């Protein structure tokens, strides 16, 4: 991130995140806002959708000018063709991710060349499990040869089997099958060895523990072509959020310890983690109306990605510069793009989540009712 253009310039009552961003001629409500921010539009690398129009509207209303659509969206699997027709929407720009394997089963490769030719910007495993390292290695090799970057979740299928929560204090107390951090780190080590061996590049999706941040820092220091991201809920919540069997906080990877959360924040601060993503996964109410282990993992967080990040900045858990980089040019660079559009944000105005606008095409926001900062307007697309 040495060539970052995020360099915040402060004005009276406000700041601009980049020299290259033009100050808008007329600032909306500039007189009333005690503090404002002009920043590039947000690129969100991980949106799962049940209804594209709903998710697009939620994105637009919350400053996300571009998002990647995960290949398990819209009740389909993008293993032969892209789920998004070209120019489906200008803002947000919706970029399709193809499925790495057929039906996302983790065994047989998808038609990756066809997916690329059909407009997929990259391929993702959408958080599904890989059954063996050999398929993983071949996926990296094949994707490399067709020029498609992979976005893979490090998760050891055997170590995480039947787990639904971080293996630690809370899962032990609640009697839930745990997913140890080693399920993530051992898979991550395998991935890092494989990309070194195959000379391929990789985006590591959804890191959740401290040790993974250290492994990625080391890989980057060695010059491996890797980028990585973290879901906003792993930065905001920890394992205690599932107390009382709160299925709205059942996520994959799971919410881990407070020490892990702190290390992830530091990873964003240091630029080791390139992007903060929403990992927006809308579920129906039936998906969550079950005993905790039987519920579907996922939380809706598209519309609160920026407000939650602003609250982390306000709590001094992240610096403005690092947070903005991880929402804008970091994720854009993972896609070999520049950030899209410009936002004006009134950072002092607050709202109650769920009252302002749609949260997405599901019923599973753990943030409903929270008071969060950020009134956002897209001022150029």
């Amino acid at each position, binding site marked *: 991130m040495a060539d970052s253009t995020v360099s915040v310039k402060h004005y009276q009552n406000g700041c601009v995140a980049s020299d290259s961003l033009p100050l808008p001629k007329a600032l909306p409500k500039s007189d009333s806002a005690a503090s404002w921010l002009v920043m590039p539009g947000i690129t969100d690398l991980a949106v799962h959708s049940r209804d594209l129009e709903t998710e697009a509207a939620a994105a637009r209303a919350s400053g996300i000018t571009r998002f990647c659509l995960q290949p398990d969206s819209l009740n389909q699997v993008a293993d032969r063709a892209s789920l998004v027709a070209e120019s489906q929407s200008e803002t947000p720009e919706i970029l399709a991710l193809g499925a790495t394997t057929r039906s996302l089963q983790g065994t047989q490769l998808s038609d990756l060349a066809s997916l690329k030719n059909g407009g997929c910007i990259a391929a993702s495993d959408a958080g599904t499990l890989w059954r063996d390292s050999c398929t993983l290695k071949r996926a990296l090799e094949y994707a490399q040869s067709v020029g498609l970057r992979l976005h893979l979740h490090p998760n050891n299928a055997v170590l995480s089997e039947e787990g639904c929560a971080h*293996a*630690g*204090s809370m899962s*032990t*107390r*609640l*009697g*839930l099958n*745990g997913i140890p951090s080693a399920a993530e780190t051992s898979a991550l080590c395998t991935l890092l060895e494989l990309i070194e061996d195959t000379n391929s590049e990789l985006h590591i999706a959804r890191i959740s523990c401290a040790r993974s941040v250290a492994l990625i820092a080391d890989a980057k220091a060695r010059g491996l072509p890797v980028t990585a991201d973290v879901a906003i809920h792993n930065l*905001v*919540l*920890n394992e205690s*959020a599932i*107390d*009382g*069997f*709160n*299925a*709205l*906080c059942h996520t994959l990877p799971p919410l881990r310890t407070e020490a892990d959360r702190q290390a992830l924040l530091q990873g964003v601060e240091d630029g080791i983690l390139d992007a903060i993503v929403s990992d927006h996964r809308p579920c129906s109410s*039936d998906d969550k*109306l*079950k*005993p*905790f*282990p*039987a519920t579907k993992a996922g939380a809706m967080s598209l519309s609160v990605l920026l407000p939650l990040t602003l609250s982390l900045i306000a709590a001094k858990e992240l610096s403005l510069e690092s947070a903005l980089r991880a929402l804008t040019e970091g994720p854009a660079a993972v896609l070999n793009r520049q950030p899209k559009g410009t936002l004006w944000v009134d950072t002092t105005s607050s709202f109650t989540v769920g009252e302002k606008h749609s949260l997405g095409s599901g019923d599973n*926001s*753990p*943030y*409903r*009712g*929270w*008071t969060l900062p950020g009134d956002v307007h897209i001022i150029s697309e």
Partner: protein
Amino acid sequence: MQTPFGTDLNPQLNASGELQHFLDTDGLNRDIIERILDTAETFFSPVDGKIKKVPLLRGKTVANVFFEASTRTRTTFEVAANRLSADVLNLDIGNSATSKGESLLDTIRNLQAMQVDMFVMRHAESGAAHFLAQQVEPHVSIVNAGDGRHAHPSQALLDAFTIRRHKPDIASLSIGIVGDILHSRVARSQVHALRLLGCRDIRLIGPQTLLPKSIGELGATRYHDFDRALEGLDVVIMLRLQRERMGTSLLPSQSEYFREYGLTQRRVDLAKPDALIMHPGPTNRGVEIAADVADGPQSVILEQVNNGIAVRMAVMSMCLGNRQKEAAHG
């Protein structure tokens, strides 16, 4: 951090802090536990020590809904409801509705429409009872008869009741719980209950594969060496070890397990001379406990079963009694 939407940490207590569901010993307090144990004492006849029939739940309907097989727990809950004069429905759900694809919630809603006042439920998923308590109509009580590996609170309290009858000062006791702690809902509920009753020396004993690292945070000490852990114990609670765990990566073999963690007379002699030997049943003789120990003079295993009836009567009558109090005031 603001509290996530949908968090209800302790639905088992009503606004006045009284029991309305019985989900777990975690989240109760010493006062409620002692009242349950004291109430259970009142059901024993002072004349012959037998459990009396009382009219406390006349006109109430209790449904025993077991999604997992059980003999002892289900039968004692049924006997308890009968002794309280409730109407009892026994539903073997494991073989019917859910196997046809009906969700847990739909099954319970249908039964609720049949005017059931209380569900006694066992389910394979941790958190099932907690989940249902948040979904049923406000006048309906849920009693957890075991959910996954999370909690089995009535077993924990009947054990506490049994201990208290023999050794009234629980706070001064050293109590060991031995075996498959990892998968044991009984052990979790026992640790919470014994801690709330003031017990300071709770020893959890087993190989590391069955003894999760963070279990110590519940307020117990972990031991891998059974012989060493037995020293000074007042109570030894053996857990049932499911045979399907043998020969997996959890445990090498039945014979090795018995050598390391089986309770033999030689080991009983390492504990205090008057130590109580307990087991929630059903026992696997020769797997976790030797037959002569299970039947020996220090064993109170059969007493536990009988005490289970009185403790379950106490729990059921208190939950529905508090409901009636609420309705009367409300």
